Structures are given as structure tokens and as C-alpha cells.
């Protein structure tokens, strides 16, 4: 890692922004600027300072590229704001240019709109609940934001309960707001999480890894015991199995998964399956 960092800083000293395409999978550092694909072609012969004259200066036929976590638009380029590896995903439809993001490791959660999180109710005040989601402020949750809730039919939520919901408002200027229904008014799995089970905290990167489609870990865990599991993007996982022993085993496996290689994991699962 140190060598890559040196190469990266050398290019920073050279002050030439690199093309995002060439840096995929490599470590990028905050402050680097990356060129988007169509831009790089026009800049190619323009290194000497010349630019081809455009008749229509404002309009460019550019691909629509989505800027994911860790990146920010800076003029025409992408500015890296977190250190980690640069990733890219081709779009399904083929019209837009895909999505770029930086894979970084973090434990502290920052609320993002649309994220599904597990929160703990800390206070009930009037019509809203205050829910701790691990961010800098508690989120507010209205009692009407549950499926089938009306003014007379209030949901049964106590202080200390676990809530699975998503953010509708989450920016740095306002306190975050969450709801337990989707846009159609259905719960879709959200709401109060059951009474038993164990809640524990892991890093955000592990959650993203576990929520990726075709995650092997989840498939293998599912083969061991029947279980219920809820992943919150704020690093919290709720897990419930038939007995306490099984729940504890699952919790420890998921926490340890972060630091194990695939082989070690398979060995552990094999051992558990025997016993």
C-alpha cells in the first residue's frame, strides 16, 4: 500500500490529473482530481495548451456519470474526498456512463438520504419519536410514518425499541428524518423489530460487503441455522436464531468475517456444521 501511495503522490506533485479509467482498483488519496472519459480525449492533444475550437462552446456530448461516495464534482472533474480504492460499475441500460465511487473503511456513520438503518428509540415527545441512528444527531420519526397508522391508531413503540426505517431527509444542515413506510405507503419490511435477538455493531464496509448481491457469507450462514437478520447501513446488525447459543455464534462469526480470509471462513463453517 505504501508504494502505491508514493506513486499517487508523485503524480500529485506532477499536477496532472489522471484519467479515472486508468486508476480503477488503485488507491486514491483525498485531493486528487480525476478526469472523466470523454474529457480525457479532448484534453489529449491539448497538453501543450491548445484546445480545439468548438463552435458550440457550451454543449458537450458527455456521458452521464454518477458520482458515488467519496467523490465530488469539481468543475468538470471528479475530486476525491476519501482515501480508498476507486471502483466503477458499468450501467445496466447502457445509456449513462456508469457510477464511480471510492471504497473506504469507516465506523462512524453519516446519515444519507435513502439509506435503510436500524435505530434505537430514545425519546417520545408529542407526535414524534427521537431515534438514535449513530450519527451526530438523533433522527426524528413521526408516529404517522408507519403502515396503517392513523391519529387514533398509534403504533406501539416504546423507548428502547429497535426501528428499521429509511431516511427521507438527511443533509448536513438539518436534523435527519426517517420513516417506516415506502413511497407507496407499505411497510416493506420496515417498522419495529421484534423483541428478542441481539444487536451488535460492525464497520460500514462490512455491511456493504454483506449486502452485496451473491454474498457468500450470507449464503453459508443461511445453511447453518434458520435465522432472521436485519442489516442497517449505519453499521448495526440485528440477528435472531432459535437458541441463545446459536445467536451468539452467528454474531461472533459476522464480526470476525471482516478479518478472515475466505479459506479460514470455510474452515470455521465446516467445523460448525459438524457439531
Amino acid at each position, binding site marked *: 500500500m505504501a*508504494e502505491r501511495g508514493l506513486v499517487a503522490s508523485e503524480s500529485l506533485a506532477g499536477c496532472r490529473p489522471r484519467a479515472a479509467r486508468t486508476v480503477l482498483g488503485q488507491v486514491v488519496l483525498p485531493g486528487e482530481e480525476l478526469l472523466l472519459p470523454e474529457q480525457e480525449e479532448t484534453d489529449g492533444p491539448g497538453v501543450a495548451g491548445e484546445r480545439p475550437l468548438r463552435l458550440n462552446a457550451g454543449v458537450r456530448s458527455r456521458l452521464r456519470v454518477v458520482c458515488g461516495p467519496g467523490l465530488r464534482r469539481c468543475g468538470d472533474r471528479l475530486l476525491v474526498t476519501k482515501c480508498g480504492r476507486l471502483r466503477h460499475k458499468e450501467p445496466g441500460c447502457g445509456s449513462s456512463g456508469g457510477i464511480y465511487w471510492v471504497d473506504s473503511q469507516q465506523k462512524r456513520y453519516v446519515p444519507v438520504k435513502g439509506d435503510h438503518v436500524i435505530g434505537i428509540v430514545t425519546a417520545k415527545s408529542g407526535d414524534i419519536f427521537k431515534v438514535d441512528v449513530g450519527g451526530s444527531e438523533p433522527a426524528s420519526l413521526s408516529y404517522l410514518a408507519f403502515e396503517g397508522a392513523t391519529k387514533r391508531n398509534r403504533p406501539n413503540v416504546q423507548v*428502547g425499541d429497535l426501528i428499521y426505517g429509511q431516511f427521507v431527509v438527511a443533509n448536513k444542515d438539518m436534523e435527519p428524518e426517517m420513516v417506516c413506510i415506502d413511497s407507496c405507503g407499505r411497510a416493506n419490511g420496515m417498522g419495529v423489530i421484534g423483541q428478542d435477538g441481539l444487536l451488535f455493531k460492525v464497520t460500514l464496509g462490512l455491511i456493504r460487503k454483506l449486502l452485496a448481491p451473491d454474498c457468500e457469507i450470507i449464503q453459508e450462514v443461511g445453511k447453518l441455522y434458520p435465522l432472521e437478520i436485519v442489516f442497517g447501513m449505519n453499521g448495526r446488525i440485528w440477528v435472531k436464531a432459535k437458541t*441463545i447459543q446459536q445467536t451468539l455464534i452467528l454474531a461472533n462469526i459476522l464480526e470476525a468475517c471482516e478479518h478472515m480470509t475466505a479459506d479460514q471462513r470455510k474452515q470455521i463453517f465446516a467445523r460448525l456444521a459438524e457439531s
Partner: protein
Amino acid sequence: MKETPLSNCERRFLLRAIEEKKRLDGRQTYDYRNIKISFGTDYGCCIVELGKTRVLGQVSCELVAPKLNRATEGILFFNLELSQMAAPSFEPGRQSDLLVKLNRLLERCLRNSKCIDTESLCVVAGEKVWQIRVDLHLLNHDGNIIDAASIAAIVALCHFRRPDVSVQGEEVTLYTPEERDPVALSIHHMPICVSFAFFQQGTYLLVDPNEREERVMDGLLVIAMNKHREICTIQSSGGIMLLKDQVLRCSKIAGVKVAEITELIQKALENDQKVRKEGGKFGFAESIANQRITTFKMEKAPIDTSDVEEKAEEIIAEAEPPSEVVSKPVLWTSGTAQIGEGVENSWGDLEDSEKDEDEGGSDEAVILDKMKMDTGVEVSDIGSQDAPIVLSDSEEEEMIILEPDKNPKKISTQTSAKQEKAPIKKPVKRRKKKRTAN
């Protein structure tokens, strides 16, 4: 920051698990977490890790006047600090209750048990005694701070060496570590705290609670004991009612645990002693392993460093500070003007060199900045006038200086390193080097 609240579901789960005699990390009810002791390069510095709870201990000493009512005893001073990095809820003003409680317990455990011989710390009775100061910092809070802190304190005290002192009549000599080896403190015994957490009104008991178990516990019993099974301190908090046989049972368990921990401490101290004596590497850099946070690896990227020196030289050669642009042209003669003053001249003094009367034909010439000379730039001679001191290995040995009012000349910047010889007929002067003070 506020502490993350404990949800009902977690509390219920933990209590049910304890009823079934299961702990979150798979320990038994009387098991301690892994204790790891590592020493720093200085004597008296150590880090103790009890599971994930980490405490840093440092002992220092100083010669001071003794207390008035205890003229022949040294002074001991203990201090435990909860660093903000230990838990998000620790803030500079906030954690006073917990802090006071921990500090009081630590003081009672170490001071009142008289584990350190304070009489041996006396140098001159009534005038000079050693003041030993033990500073403990909590680096990470994962439960059971008091155990980790007491282990760190006693390990640091055992590891510490104070400078040697000799008293001859009226004369007191303090030796530096280089003159005489520093001397260990005289420690009678090693008291170590053992914590017991009680749940469900004293029905269930756990040794060495971790952070989550501490949050759901009803009460805490701390027993400080040494390996000779002497109880140094005992404290019960939380307001639970304990039965007599429960307390006796706890003290028996504490005896066993303290014996194990004392053995571990002795082994760690011996290892460190051995490594220091053999001249091996010691210190935190060796004993605390690098922690990996992910399992992803990257292949090493080979970097070609062969042209680094050339590049560096290029950068250094080109990196002249740019002179400020003064947009005031000064007209010397028709066809000749000067803008700005250029960089300081490092070649020589205008007055001492002969003027060259030739005109024309000279490709280039250097302008000695008269204005600079007139403003009194300091010139200091180095050596005699006869022997020119070569300050650079430039091949240029001659210099042609042309007067501004007699000859037309061209302006060239000072930054070029080489200058071509101008073809002239007159003899050229030898260059004298004078140093201009910056």
C-alpha cells in the same frame, strides 16, 4: 457526545444469556479476558491490554521536600485519566463521577496497602525525598477499567528505575543513568483489583465484565488482593445486598485470579529484563504488533527510482525564487533600458574592476547593478585580494564589465549559469570574488 443508548432487546438478550451462563464472547463466568503487557523503551512505561480495554501507565520521579508531618517518607502520587479516545461519551468535563470513583479506588488500593516502601525513598530526612508519580491513561474502554488500571500501575512501578543517590555526610550525589545504573523501587507486594459484576439482585455473578455487561449489571464488587491472599481493599457499589457467603466466595475466586495475574506479570517483567540485558530490541514498536484492518492485499508496485536524482537536481536548479516585477523601466542610453533589479549579484565589485573601453562586438555583458552597490549592500572580503577564492566550480574565470554610459550593452538575466566569453581585444581582468551578505 451522548452515549449510545442500550436498547431493550439487547438488555433482555444479555440477561437471558447470563441466566443460561453464556457470555457474549464465549467466556465462562469466572474467566478473564486475555491480558497482554508490553513495555516501552523508558523504564516505568507500559501498556496493559485486558481484552480491548487498554491502559497506558508511566512512572516518573522527582526530588522534593517531604511533607511536614512525614519527614522521612517519600511521596506517592497517583492519577488516572480517561482519555477522550477511550469512548465517545468521555468528554473533558463530563465523566467526573466515574473518574472520581476510579481514582479513589486506585489510591486506596496502592497507597493504603503500603505496597511501596516509602521509607526507602528518603534521601535526606526532612529535606529531600523522592516523589514518585504514577500517571495512567485509559486508551480504550471495553469494560473493567479498574482491573486494567491497577495492573498497569503495579507493572509500571515494578518496571521503574530511579536514579541512584549516595549520601556522604552532608554531601548528596545524584548519579545520572550513565554514571550508575538506576535502582529499582522497593516493592513489598503487588495488590491487584478483581471486579465482580452482579445481575438480577445478586443471583448471578460474572468476573471481568466487559462494556455491555457493565451496562446491564446491578452492582459491582471490587476486591484488591495480593498473591499472599491478603485483602488490600474491598468495595461494593450499586447498592446491591450481598450475602456473607457470596463475599467469601468472591474472595476465594479473587485469590486464584490474582495468583495467575501475578505470575503473568512476573514473566513479562523477566522477559523484558532479559531482552534489555542481551541488547535486543525492546519497546512498544517491537511488542505491539501492527494490526491489519482488512484482509485485502495489493501487490507491490515496483517503482523506478533511477531518475529521481536527476529530477531532483533539475527541480533544484530551476527553482529560483522569482524576482518581483517592478514595472518601472530605467533608461540608461538610447536603446538600453532596465526593468527591475534582477537577483543579487554574486560576481564582484564594480569599482575594483577595470573598465573595458571597447565597444561593440561584444555579444553579451553582465550588468552590475550600480544601484544595489550604492544602497550599501555589505561586501565582506574573504581572504586577501591576491588569492581569489573560488566559490563555485564554474569554468568562467574572466569577467568583462562595461560602463553603462560609455558602451551600449545588452541586458541578460542572472539566472543563466554559464556565460560565453565575449571576443574583445583588450586584456581581461581577473575576477575577484567577494561575498555579498544576504
